[in-house]
């Protein structure tokens, strides 16, 4: 059996039986994996305090021939991001990021850029200057691109009319982008879902959030309007594509109750 070592971020922890834990993690070189850690619930030195949500670990695991579960042999804690457990709102934002990663990825489908984004985003949330919801916006804007559902923010998805001419910006989840007013009239019957109007400022900052390198991303500052529009947009967009909702949205601080549904 093949033994592997990888950097990994813990996305979900489930108790299993009397003394084991089942951990879902996002690894740097194999993407999402699910593994069992035998004896992890007893205070076994090799696991205690390590197999925790959002922890960054160096994992040693063995693939199993008979099951998709890998066997976690050893874990070294790289960082545990304490603020994500000491502040409820940051905990919720981190949970939403982890839950979205679980929903949008397949096992054994490596995407090193997503590992990097995930690590960056959780780290972003540990800075007390950053509102937790901004971390969610930055993460989701880029996640959708990485999983092949790029938010189309450059022009009308029907006729290609580019941004400044396109205004007002009406985003349609069913079209995964903007539809200009001329195309809307033409498509009348087939565009059924309500338009999500976006302010120019929101579109501009989301465009930046998509393309800036990670090292520059923490410079972005959202106005209250851009923050609230971006959250509604990213939530509705993901929910429409996946046809399922992430539970954590219901508890995100600063996100209007009207959209939680």
């Amino acid at each position, binding site marked *: 059996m093949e033994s592997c070592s990888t950097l990994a971020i813990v996305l979900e922890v489930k108790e299993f039986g009397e003394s084991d834990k089942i951990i879902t993690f996002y690894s740097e070189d194999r993407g999402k994996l699910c593994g069992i850690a035998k004896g992890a619930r007893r205070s076994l030195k090799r696991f205690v305090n390590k197999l925790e*949500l959002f922890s960054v670990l160096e994992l040693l695991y063995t693939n199993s021939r008979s099951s998709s579960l890998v066997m976690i042999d050893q874990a070294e804690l790289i960082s545990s991001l304490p603020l994500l*457990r000491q502040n409820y709102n940051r905990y919720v934002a981190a*949970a939403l990021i982890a*839950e979205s990663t679980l929903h949008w990825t397949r096992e054994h489908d490596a995407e090193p850029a997503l590992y990097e984004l995930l690590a960056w985003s959780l780290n972003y949330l540990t800075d007390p200057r950053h509102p937790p919801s901004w971390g969610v916006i930055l993460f989701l804007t880029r996640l959708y691109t990485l999983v092949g559902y790029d938010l189309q923010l450059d022009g009308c998805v029907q006729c290609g009319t580019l941004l400044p001419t396109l205004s007002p910006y009406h985003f349609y989840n069913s079209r995964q982008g903007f539809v200009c007013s001329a195309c809307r009239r033409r498509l009348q019957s087939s565009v059924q879902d309500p338009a999500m109007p976006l302010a120019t400022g929101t579109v501009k900052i989301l465009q930046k959030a998509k393309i800036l390198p990670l090292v520059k991303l923490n410079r972005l500052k959202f106005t209250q309007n851009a923050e609230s529009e971006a959250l509604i947009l990213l939530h509705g967009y993901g929910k429409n594509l996946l046809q399922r909702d992430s*539970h954590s949205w*219901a*508890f995100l601080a600063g996100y209007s109750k009207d959209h939680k549904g």
Partner: protein
Amino acid sequence: MDVVPPALARLIEDLHRLPGIGRKTATRLALHILRRPAAEARDLARDLVDLHGAIHLCRNCFAFSEKDPCVICGDPGRDPALVCVVEEPADLMAIEKTGAFKGQYHLLHGVLSPMDGIGPEEIRIGALLSRVKKGTVAEVLIATSSTVPGEATAAYLISRLQGMQVKVTRLACGIPMGMDIKYADDVTLARAIESRMDTGKP
């Protein structure tokens, strides 16, 4: 698999739904029950039927109990001004086993877990806050687990109890008894230093 008689298959399904019981174990348990005398199975069935009828939640601390208030809340020897907050009944039992705690409890019946749809309204946090608001509680000892959800729940409780006329304490976290400190992990060691104790000497 229609070689399994339906009554046995149903029992296997029922047992399989219990936490930590795989299909193999469920089958083994079901066959065991079948091989034992019918009276034993009837006793088991009666105990299961009686369970929900006999046991309720204590309206003060939300522990499972046949009495209301429960044995602990009804005990005049226990200090009602000291309330220990735990996640679940098993945690209460573990603390009771030590004999070191003389106050009362408050059971949350869960931890804050956004991914599972569990927020403050889904566990017994509101009831704890109203218990404190009545003014009879002097100290709340938060004894949730030192897992991420347990700690986040503690953080949430601390923020909600802030400003109320009550002392809030947290179960100390540190080096396990009998452990050489050079084998402790960084997080545990750091927490042990933060929650260091005064030895009482100048």
